[in-house]
């Protein structure tokens, strides 16, 4: 059986499971049956795509199914790029299914989740496999609608209905942009097959328009600022394992669409395209993490951090475009590989963190960090796995997040080779933005972890929390192990990504397998090298040495007592640092500009026994400056047009007559 047939069979299996879930909806075994079956199917698809990717030299295989448009059929194709993204999709799907086996039992309305979960996975698989514009758009819409249904699964919770509405509007807008982009690509001849689009020559004008439309279409799904507004609403509204899929995987499917069109279908890029992508990526990275820093809802914080990571990936793709446009093949392969590596890494740790947030939600019923705290004592395994995820996402060695960001910085350092002055000056500035985003990410995850898991419990539910089930823990620990593995053995990952780079750019990074001691060397050893394994080993050895000497020679005495706190006991847990107070220094430094943040202190007069209050005022300038006016205008026009619904029959007839005359007049003047 050829590889693409296997993948399509898996998709068919997932769709079958969706139907089975409807049939089983009232059965008490439905959760266990559906999630274990999706786990099995995703695992098969995952193994199939990994085998294809590691097979190296295999040629792309296509498949045409006689469905869809009658004269066209539906084309599917499995190539290196698609197989890499299938790995991401199915790994996310498998881990979310495993997690769902435990988490799903706590769902109040499983029949609203179970049918759509496999359908959503099938949709994402199909988008990656599609090989003509029609199937692509159809699958894209299928994926969007399935995920919308999952966002609306708990539609009675406050805020979820609004989240679903905003998501639907933005998804329709994105699909419209994609539709126009594919229309332009197909040209007047109208051949919608990707092979024909790839072979055609596109004028620079069309290429520029397609780039803008793809940034609008794929960018809105991926969460590029300022099209990100739906993401922090919709991702947290879904059940946690679906949030993990939406944040960790669906944004990657959008990035796949961007890569497919801009790098693959459009042919040789121009350097000016990279300026736009770099700029948007840099802004997205910093804005995303600043939003996250201000957030106190754990799942929304994670959703904002997804925006940051999407920004990082787009910066890297922008670098790849810049190098590719100037014929710097090796540097382009480096930047492109770094982007793909970060795609993979982000799917690992973001899924892990959403699973952790889901575990906290299951065990306490709270997403508000300011009502949590001290969970490390009551949920030791969850808190350990989440700690690994936090270190990894903060781009700290020896975990995987650092490796991909290090590769991106190495690509940034190649920028002096670029001939264009605009890029020469821009790339270091974007590099500084990336460094800022990385440091803020570390700050943000110190906050998230510190407020949620450390300190003293801030509420009764946090005090009564208990460890979650074994399936959830297994899913988290598998992802945590992958975070560490990809961090200490980056060489094999880079080598596995090389077929994708060869297929899309025609070049690859140097083979890493031959480097001594499993180092990675992006360009040359004299330029830069990194060895995650040795760093890990050194840290372990020196920490063990320190522990050994301390325990051999130092005092063993240990006494437990009340916290010292400079001799000032603060009796209530409310006196601890909360999320808001932790963010205060960064809010004062960056927030006054970005969010027009103001602190208002209401100090009662002397003698007044009211408590003093601190109120923080934050403005989401993107929403207030861009979306609120548009929504207001639409509402205003709709109100005006609404009057047309209440006319008499005579007025309707005259309206029709007037329209007819106007149209005829227009036609007469036109011709």
């Amino acid at each position, binding site marked *: 059986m050829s590889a693409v047939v296997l993948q399509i069979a898996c998709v068919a299996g997932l769709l079958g499971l969706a139907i089975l879930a409807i049939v089983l909806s009232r059965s008490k075994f439905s959760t266990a049956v559906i999630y274990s079956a999706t786990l099995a199917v995703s695992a098969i698809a995952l193994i199939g795509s990994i085998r294809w990717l590691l097979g190296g030299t295999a040629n792309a295989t296509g498949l045409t199914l006689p469905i869809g448009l009658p004269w066209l059929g539906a084309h599917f194709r499995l190539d290196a790029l698609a197989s890499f993204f299938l790995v991401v999709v199915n790994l996310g799907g498998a881990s979310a299914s495993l997690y769902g086996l435990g988490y799903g039992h706590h769902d109040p309305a499983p029949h609203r989740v179970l049918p759509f979960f496999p359908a959503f996975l099938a949709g994402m698989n199909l988008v990656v496999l599609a090989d003509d514009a029609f199937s692509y758009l159809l699958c894209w819409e299928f994926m969007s609608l399935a995920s919308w249904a999952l966002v609306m699964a708990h539609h009675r919770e406050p805020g979820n209905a609004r989240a679903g509405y905003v998501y639907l509007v933005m998804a329709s807008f994105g699909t419209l942009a994609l539709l126009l982009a594919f229309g332009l690509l197909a040209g007047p001849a109208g051949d919608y097959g990707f092979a024909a689009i790839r072979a055609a020559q596109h004028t620079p004008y069309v290429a520029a328009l397609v780039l803008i439309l793809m940034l609008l279409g794929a960018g809105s799904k991926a969460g590029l600022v300022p099209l990100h507004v739906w993401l922090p609403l919709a991702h947290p509204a879904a059940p946690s394992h679906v949030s993990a899929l939406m944040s960790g995987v669906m944004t990657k499917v959008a990035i796949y669409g961007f890569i497919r069109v801009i790098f693959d279908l459009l042919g040789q890029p121009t350097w000016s395209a990279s300026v736009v992508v770099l700029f948007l990526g840099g802004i997205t990275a910093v804005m995303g993490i600043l939003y996250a820093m201000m957030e106190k809802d754990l799942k929304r914080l994670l959703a904002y951090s997804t925006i940051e990571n999407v920004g990082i990936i787009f910066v890297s793709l922008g670098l790849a475009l810049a190098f590719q446009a100037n014929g710097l093949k090796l540097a382009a392969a480096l930047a492109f590989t770094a982007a793909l590596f970060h795609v993979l890494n982000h799917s690992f740790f973001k899924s892990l963190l959403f699973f952790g947030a889901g575990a906290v939600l299951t065990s306490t019923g709270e997403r508000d960090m300011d009502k949590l705290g001290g969970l490390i*004592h009551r949920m030791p395994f969850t808190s350990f796995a989440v700690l690994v995820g936090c270190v990894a996402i903060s781009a*700290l*060695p020896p975990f995987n997040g650092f490796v991909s960001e290090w590769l991106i910085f190495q690509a940034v350092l190649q920028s*002096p080779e670029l001939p264009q002055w605009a890029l020469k000056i821009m790339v270091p500035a974007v590099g500084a933005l990336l460094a800022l985003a990385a440091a803020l990410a570390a700050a943000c995850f110190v*906050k998230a972890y510190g407020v949620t898991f450390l300190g003293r419990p801030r509420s009764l539910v946090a005090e009564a929390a208990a460890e979650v089930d074994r399936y959830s823990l297994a899913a988290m620990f598998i992802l945590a192990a992958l975070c560490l593995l990809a961090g200490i053995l980056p060489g094999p990952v880079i080598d596995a990504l090389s077929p994708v780079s060869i297929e899309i750019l025609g070049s690859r990074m140097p083979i890493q397998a031959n480097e001594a001691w499993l180092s990675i060397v992006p360009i040359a050893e004299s330029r830069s090298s990194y*060895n995650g394994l040795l760093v890990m080993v050194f840290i372990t050895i020196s920490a063990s040495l320190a522990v050994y000497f301390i325990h051999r020679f130092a*005092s063993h*005495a240990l006494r437990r007592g009340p*916290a010292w706190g400079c001799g000032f006991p603060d009796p209530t847990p409310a006196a601890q640092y909360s999320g808001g107070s932790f963010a205060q220094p960064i809010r004062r430094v960056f927030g006054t500009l970005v969010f027009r943040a103001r602190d208002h202190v209401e100090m009662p007069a002397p003698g007044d026994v009211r408590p003093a209050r601190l109120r923080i005022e934050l403005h989401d300038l993107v929403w207030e400056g861009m979306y609120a006016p548009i929504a207001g205008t639409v509402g205003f026009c709709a109100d005006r047009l609404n009057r047309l619904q209440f006319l008499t029959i005579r007025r309707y007839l005259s309206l029709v007559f007037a329209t007819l005359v106007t149209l005829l007049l227009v036609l007469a003047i036109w011709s």
Partner: protein
Amino acid sequence: MVVISDIVVQGIQMLLVLLLAPLLTGFVRKTKARLVRRQGASVFQPYRDLLRLLRKEVVLADNASWLFRVTPYVTFAAIWVAAALVPTFATGLLFNWTADLIAIVALLGSARFFLALAGMDVGTSFGGIGSSREVMIAALAEPAMLLIVFCMALVAGSTQLSTVADFLGSSYVGLRVSLGMALVALIMVALAENARIPVDNPATHLELTMVHEAMVLEYSGRHLAMIEFGAFLKLLLYISLIACLFFPWKIALFGTGPLAYTIGAGVYIVKLAVAGFLLALFETATAKMRVFRVPQFLGAALMLGLLGTLLLFVSRSF
């Protein structure tokens, strides 16, 4: 055989930084005291402090978690590894190829991440204030650091410290304005990262202005000893970094034999002494700034780094 001698030299370097770090801090403290006409404690006082802390019992807050107890060892190990990766008396050592400058900075970031978490662990407001300010300073220092790295990489064509040191030491690079800017920027970042005046005051206690000391307030005994030792090592690391990047004189090349290594080590100690003296002089002459003036201070470092980079572009092409 070669590998064994490599490991021996590398081991000597790891032990050297470990032995010298408390001495450097003691020297800085002694010089500061002498500059204000005080007698001051002996330069060996930090060793005695460490021994005293090691002999004391640990008083642990009731609700301190395992993370709180693991953090001192993790941060110490991360800083020690980072310090061992910076060339001190010789370049091209075995471990130098393990990580470049970006990775070294990130290793220090790992140490800070855990320390900031430990500050949040006990759940007192002092720990929180220290952690939140520490991460703010880090968020401002890191972009500046990256631009310095960028500037150096542009000059030397590498981020590998050994290569950069060899390049700047051997060939005639000349006095470049951008290198000067990078040096000033790196000194500013180093002051901020090591919690020195004017960003933070290592000698203060029980003040709302303190950052690093507030974060580690709950530590005692052997745990505090590890954290203090880590702080000593970090100061040594940054001075070694500045010395290796900007003043790589007499730094021994790889494989030049014991004599060159000895000379390199001697010169290295002289460099440390000079840098320690200058640090003490600067700290005596400056006042600590308010916490929310730090963004301007580090913003200046960022601008210097950016300006240095842009100047390199200009001077290269014209």
